[in-house]
């Protein structure tokens, strides 16, 4: 609803102020262009989505494994935690060209970038879930003779599932963006390529098409994870939303 109002306002302003289309095209213009040039960017969507989804899956898995390792080996936690933070402090824009130098223009350096942005929220959220087990549950388990492994599989792991999925949600929204950024570096196909080409040709309408595609697929991925969340987490009436 708010979105619709925003578009109407946008449409109105571009007409009244007579803003040239290369500066800010009206939504109607963008929409028409999207339909007209659909075959042009369709393969790009596929390429970017493939990159984003692979990156998200790998990134989340790696993020979860790192969290598990750090949790089960507390001595590792102190050693590696600063490294985790560091991995997020290095600007992707700086790192990306380096990765291209090391690994070439193929799939791999792009994938590494997405994994780098995606694993972090998952790791942090899982670690939080592992350690935030209510004290009385832990006490019951210990008194009843649970081993450390049973404590992990029966209590800490399920306890971490809701925050874990929240982490994946954040990672999902990052993944499409990460894919597009990685494509700027050089790729044959992808929304990132489409965007750079359109931008340098002053086809602002097409840049906006790219933006809308990114937003749209980020939202789709996000909702997909919300659906998975609803399926998996049935026990908490208030959480998991």
């Amino acid at each position, binding site marked *: 609803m708010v979105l619709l109002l925003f578009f109407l306002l946008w449409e109105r302003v571009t007409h009244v102020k007579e803003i040239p289309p290369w500066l800010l095209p009206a939504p109607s213009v963008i929409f028409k262009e999207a339909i007209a040039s659909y075959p042009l960017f369709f393969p790009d969507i596929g390429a970017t989505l493939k990159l984003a989804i692979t990156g998200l899956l790998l990134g989340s898995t790696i993020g979860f494994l790192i969290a598990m390792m750090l949790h089960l080996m507390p001595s590792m936690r102190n050693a590696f935690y600063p490294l985790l933070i560091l991995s997020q402090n290095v600007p992707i824009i700086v790192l990306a060209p380096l990765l291209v130098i090391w690994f070439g223009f193929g799939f791999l350096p792009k994938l590494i970038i997405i994994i780098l942005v995606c694993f972090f929220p998952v790791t942090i959220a899982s670690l939080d879930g592992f350690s935030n087990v209510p004290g*009385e*549950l832990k*006490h*019951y388990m*210990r*008194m*009843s*003779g*649970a*081993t450390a492994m*049973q404590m992990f599989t*029966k*209590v800490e792991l*399920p*306890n971490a*599932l809701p925050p874990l999925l929240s982490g994946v949600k954040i990672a999902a929204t990052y993944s499409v963006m990460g894919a597009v950024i990685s494509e700027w570096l050089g790729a044959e196909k992808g929304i990132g390529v489409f965007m750079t080409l359109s931008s340098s040709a002053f086809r602002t309408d097409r840049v906006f098409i790219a933006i809308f595609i990114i937003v749209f697929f980020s939202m789709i991925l996000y909702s997909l994870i919300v659906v998975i969340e609803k399926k998996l*987490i*049935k*026990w*908490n*009436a208030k959480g998991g939303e």
Partner: protein
Amino acid sequence: MGAKISLEKITKAFIETGSVLEEISLYVKEGEFVSIIGPSGSGKSTIFQCIGGLLLPDNGEMFLGERKINGGTGNIAYMPQQPSLLPWRTVLDNVLLGQELFQKPDKQEAQDWLKKINLSDYENAFPHQLSGGMNQRVAFIRALLSPQSVLLLDEPFSALDEFTRFDMQKWLLSVWEEKRKSVLFITHNIEEAIFLSDRIYLLSPRPAKIVQEISIPFKRPRTDLLLLENEFLQLKRDIYSALKAGGLHESV
């Protein structure tokens, strides 16, 4: 019959708080219901943590049957003050948890017990959908179906309101009559202890010593009429004055 579980001169001190337990000796026979009454903060829970193997006593020995269990875990089934059911498990899966830690759980037995306590309909419900009293019943069944033969109940009803509490006491007795495991029960409620127990140990304030051991003569099964009998009230008075003489003030 020999003692199922026994503590011999258990002593425990902490650096921060000093001596907590002083030469605690007690035993529970096979199928016996024994309570420990003591003021809050007297170290009752410390006794349980020693038996459960979470704490190592400084001195003294503990036996399960003939076997020494100092520092060993998994020797007892436990029911805490909070139900402590795993929120992501259904009622049935929660009941199975105690067995699951040691062996392949017996689902049929668990279902039969849930039926017996009229919670069959809630088998697949999650704990947050049940009332506090219902959750506590589930927690008791979980402990009862655990493979261990000794139950430790740690003030299980203290978080419930007075009415639910009394219902739960009667309910607990009726269930326990059917499957008589040895029970060690912690409470600070004198009436509750008399109503439920075969024997009662009175604990002094910290550092905890055993002040007195009292046998409760009432026959089972017991009903609520018992609460009004003179003998019951006399026992209650005796215990109260014994606790008072032991240095207990207002906390009971």
